[in-house]
Every structure is written in structure tokens, then in C-alpha cells.
């Protein structure tokens, strides 16, 4: 995993992406017990171009030139499927406020647990609800910040429904 992160850090240093943050289940694993996942989600901020269309082609080309092949929506970096994702309002905020962490000797940025919780709430798939319940129980969340985040991103109704399901 260190080599994967090193490769992504190099990609950022080379200007292919402006910044990045680990999201998804791997990011959640920094705060709670490990959960099964198939891939590593990397949210990226891309350099501004004239085109109104956001594409991740530059990332695929950069990694392909270094021997990492694309497979479906993933790029297989040293055997680990990595999915690169462009950001929307919520995930861009999560990327901007991501925290510095270390894997082995490699430094990386990981989304805050509160942002991960809000993203899980928004996605709302069964596995997201299970992970959200685990995150709430095991991570030390800043609840006022999470509540504010939920309201600001229009997730209040989903939050009420989730709490109703959780507490019966």
C-alpha cells in the first residue's frame, strides 16, 4: 500500500492532480475496525482547464505510462484496484479539510470521519448504513460538526430516518 500511495504522491508532485484525499472504506478504516472492500477510493482535484468537461484521462495516461493498467473503472496500481473520483460540493469540502496521515513511511491525506459519515448517509446503500453505524459507535466524531455538515448539505431528512432505523 505504501508503494501505491507513493505513486499517487508522485502524480500530485508532477502536477497531474492538484490535491487528493483517500475516501471510502479505506478512509473509514483509519477511524474504525477494518471493513471488507475491493478498492481504494481516491478523490482528486484536477488542474483547471478551458474545457467544461471534467475527465480523468490525464490520470489514466500518467499511470499507464508507468506500467499500471486500467481495468473497468479502476487502475490497478501494484495489484491494488484504485478508483479515482472527481469531486462534488460535499466531497470537495471533504478533500479540502482532509487530514494528514501516515501509512508505513508514506504520508497521505485522509477524509475526516465526519465527512465520511455524511457521504455514507448520502449514498445510503445497505453497506453504507452498516458502515455509518460502525463509524458512529467506534470513531470519536465531532457531533456538532457532523450535524452542521448534514444540514448544510441537505441531508437532514436522511439523518432523521437513519436515526429512527438505528434506535428503532
Amino acid at each position: 500500500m505504501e508503494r501505491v500511495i507513493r505513486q499517487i504522491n508522485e502524480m500530485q508532485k508532477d502536477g497531474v492532480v492538484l490535491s487528493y484525499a483517500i475516501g471510502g472504506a479505506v478512509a473509514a478504516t483509519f477511524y474504525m475496525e477494518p471493513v471488507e472492500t475491493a478498492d481504494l477510493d481516491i478523490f482528486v482535484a484536477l488542474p483547471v482547464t478551458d474545457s467544461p468537461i471534467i475527465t480523468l484521462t490525464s490520470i489514466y495516461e500518467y499511470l499507464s505510462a508507468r506500467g499500471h493498467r486500467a481495468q473497468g473503472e479502476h487502475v490497478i496500481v501494484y495489484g491494488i484496484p484504485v478508483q479515482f473520483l472527481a469531486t462534488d460540493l460535499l466531497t470537495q469540502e471533504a478533500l479540502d479539510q482532509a487530514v494528514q496521515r501516515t501509512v508505513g513511511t508514506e504520508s497521505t491525506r485522509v477524509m475526516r470521519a465526519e465527512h465520511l459519515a455524511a457521504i455514507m448517509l448520502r449514498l445510503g446503500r445497505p453497506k453504507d448504513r452498516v458502515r455509518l453505524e460502525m463509524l458512529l459507535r467506534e470513531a470519536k466524531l465531532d457531533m456538532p460538526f457532523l450535524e452542521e455538515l448534514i444540514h448544510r448539505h441537505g441531508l437532514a431528512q436522511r439523518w432523521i430516518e437513519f436515526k429512527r432505523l438505528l434506535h428503532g
Partner: protein
Amino acid sequence: MDDRTNELMGRLLNDKELGRQELARLPIEEKLRLIALMQRRANAIRLSAGRPTQPEWPLEELGFPETSEHKEVKAQFDELEGRLLTASPGVAAVMNACGAYVHAMEQAEQYLKSFHPTPVFTAGAGTAMDSDQV
């Protein structure tokens, strides 16, 4: 449920919760290794149900990097080992003997392997035994 069953259930759930908390406190490197092991277990279940498997992360990519936690434990171990060796020449002799024993066992293993160069069970794929090799 009677009181005894309730008590047992309560203890069971409490132990499970403590286990989860312990897992949550592990260093991230260990957690990533656990994810890779979970992928292998999930694939074994998929195979047994006749379903296609999912990609597995290569364990060698998740090796044992030197985290701050590892360094701390190693430093404590080195210090303890040093104190033991200086405290008693007898301990040093025992540790040398243990080292020689481990070396002999490794040599014996190499010798046995020379008779069976092909492993019966292919590790890594973590999926199923190759019928040709069984």
C-alpha cells in the same frame, strides 16, 4: 430467555464489542492486512457457492512496514534483550542455544523441501487447490 441465558448473551455481546474496539485501535497497516485477509475469506465463500471471485490485494504489498508503533515495540524488545544478556551470562548461553536450534530447524526444512519442490497448496491465490497438484 431466563436470567442465565440473558447473562451469557450480555457477556457475549460485551466481549464482541470489546473485540471491535481492539480492532479499531490497531495501526492502519495491520488493518489493511486484515482487509486483504477478509477478501480471501470472502472469495473462499464465493467459490464454495459457485460464484465468481473478486480481486484480492497482494499481501506482499501490505508487508510489515515500520510504523511508529512497530519501532516503539522493537525498541522496548531490544532494551529488554540487552538487559537480559548483561544481567546473566546463563541467559546469553540459552539464547545462543535457541538461535542455533532455529538455524538447524531452518536447514532441516530446506532439506525436506528439496524432496518436494512443488507445493501441494498454492498460497497467494487463496482460492482453491489446483486439482493437478493434489
